[in-house]
């Protein structure tokens, strides 16, 4: 599209600035940005940690624009960046529009979305089933003491207050994961709003960003909203236990999030393109509002030097990098999955340009 005419000069300018201003990297490598990427904001905290650690270890510098999944898909499809990143898998139609050959989805970490609420009278974590959450966000459940909520929280005296729904108003991977879960867990939701980065919400208020949603929930007694796990954790928001497919109510812990990935990915066919949803997955402990997040790269790398650097980085990220994931509230990929991702990386062709 027309953006290319803007993005190319801006990116080039950015690279020139970086090249001029950067201090010499360790290992005597020439100091410049080696790779550029753009995309999802959801995994940005962990990605930025990876890039800085990787630059310190190897001298390879990666510049990442945390512009949103849509922008990441757009830019990698136009080949204005070396890799993209997205929270929701690309559609077949989007994949068909890509320039420069097929794009691969490489999962990196597992993230989760939590349901947070403001009920001052309740001290223990609230339990919520997929049907209850869908009912609340559809507007069919309007009081906190509705039987659909009270029956799964028998030990809690639910207040008779009105529920105020708060949702994201900006397009986001967080909304995609949340609505993907509701679509999977509740038929009425699947027939109604469905899943997407942008939802035509039947009820509620829109907040901008995680902070907009969390701020509104914190300020309004009776409010309910959803944010990504890291945001809720770092800001000490209460999080609900969510009913999973096995019928257990599970907390969004790293272990439970990883369990969601293990359950789904174990059954994948060998030739999977990793465009899978892991919401509402099987497993006793699986946290149901979990999702993979992906890096997008071309199967045939036009520039073999850059391609090799990118593959080296991804292998590092999935082994050493994943160890930091938990500290930043993401779950590392389960070990068998990492092995299969490695096999996929081996299939990337580096001699496309020559």
């Amino acid at each position, binding site marked *: *599209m*027309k953006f290319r005419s803007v993005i190319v000069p801006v990116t080039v300018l950015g690279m020139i600035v970086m090249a001029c201003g950067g201090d010499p990297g360790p290992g005597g490598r020439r100091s410049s940005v080696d790779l550029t990427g753009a995309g999802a904001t959801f995994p940005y905290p962990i990605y930025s940690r990876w890039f800085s650690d990787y630059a310190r270890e190897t001298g390879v510098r990666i510049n990442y624009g945390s*512009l*949103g*999944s*849509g*922008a990441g*898909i*757009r830019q990698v499809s136009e080949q204005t960046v070396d890799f993209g990143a997205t929270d929701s898998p690309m559609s077949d*139609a*989007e994949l068909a529009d890509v320039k420069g050959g097929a794009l691969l989805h490489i999962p990196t970490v597992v993230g989760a979305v939590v349901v947070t609420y403001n009920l001052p009278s309740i001290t223990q974590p609230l339990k919520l089933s997929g049907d209850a959450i869908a009912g609340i966000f559809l507007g069919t459940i309007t009081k906190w003491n509705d039987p659909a909520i009270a029956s799964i929280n028998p030990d809690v005296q639910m207040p008779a207050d*009105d529920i*105020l729904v708060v949702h994201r*108003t*900006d*397009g*986001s*991977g967080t909304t995609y994961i949340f609505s993907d879960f509701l679509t999977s867990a509740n038929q009425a939701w699947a027939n109604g*709003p*469905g*899943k*997407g*980065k*942008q*939802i*035509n*919400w039947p009820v*509620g*208020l*829109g*907040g*901008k960003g995680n902070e*907009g949603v969390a*701020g*509104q929930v914190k*300020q*309004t007694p009776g409010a309910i909203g959803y944010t990504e796990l890291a945001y809720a954790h770092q800001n000490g928001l209460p999080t609900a236990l969510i009913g999973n497919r096995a019928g257990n109510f599970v907390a969004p812990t790293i272990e439970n999030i990883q369990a969601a990935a293990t359950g789904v990915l174990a059954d994948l066919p060998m030739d999977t393109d990793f465009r899978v949803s892991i919401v509402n997955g099987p497993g006793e402990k699986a946290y149901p509002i979990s999702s993979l997040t992906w890096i997008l790269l071309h199967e045939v790398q036009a520039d073999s030097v850059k391609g090799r650097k990118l593959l080296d980085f991804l292998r590092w990220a999935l082994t050493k990098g994943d160890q930091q994931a938990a500290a930043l509230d993401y779950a590392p990929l389960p070990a068998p999955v990492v092995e299969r991702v490695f096999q996929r990386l081996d299939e990337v062709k580096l001699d496309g340009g020559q």
Partner: protein
Amino acid sequence: MSVDPGADSTPSPVTPIRGDGPKVSGQNFGDRIYRWTITAFALCIPLLLLLIAVEIGSAGWPTFREHGISFLFLSTWDPNSGQYGVLPAIYGTLISSLLAILLATPLALGVAIFLSEFAPAWLRTPVAFLVDLLAAIPSVIYGLWGIFFLIPLLRDHVAPAIKSLPVIGALPIFAGPAYGNSLLAAVLILTIMILPYTSSVAREVLLAVPRSQREAALALGATRWETIRDAVVPYAKSGIVGGVILGLGRAIGETMAVTMLIGNVAQIKASLFAPAYTMAALIANEFSEASGPHLSALMAVGSALFLITIAVNGIARWLVWRVSREGAA
């Protein structure tokens, strides 16, 4: 853009000196270079405007082609199912700006009249400075102030107080639950934000009213109030309307503070306590994650906003022109 239609109709004793006036035969080479350079600079602005219009228009073209002009009158915005109706956002944009102008204009006029007619000299400069300072505050700061001060105030005190009033509390414009984030919050923040624009311009024009105008009115036995009402304000009328337009333009385009306070729900409700949406907020919220038809739809919204801004400005210009003609007659 730079031509003031009012200028043509106002009789002026001095014939304006025009760039394409009588040619000096032996025009200096330096003069010619100067003239070309200046012309090029002057052409940059309309060219830029044209470029923006073409770029946004062509990016939004697929939406116009597929949905026609009808998408301006549909009220469902659902990118998932490919429905792009922007009527609620257009409504929110116009109504929030209009209400803000209605609230801000008397306030701004009051400030301007006080500063130009009543304030002692030692008070004039600091108050004028503080009012102008309002224009320098970043809109995100207004948004934060709105979230932490205005919204709790509206939700916990203003809304319950209004709702408890007989008759007034039952009016449809105050119906529904009040969560704070609402059309009203956006209108109030816009009012504060556009106040300095309107009041600065109004103050300057009021100060420019000749002393003789006031003295003549006073000499005829007018009170101070009558002098201001009948002699000073009418003289400055077209300038004041210009200041209001400046404020209106600012209100229509304001994005950040409004996004943070308006609640961002695409619906048309009579209630001031209900959340709403504006076109600028819609684009800002959805742009980063949009692709394909969704992106094109946002660009179409951008084109529509562009056209609405031009239309509103055009109408306002026409108003100024009419007002100034009346003033001259």
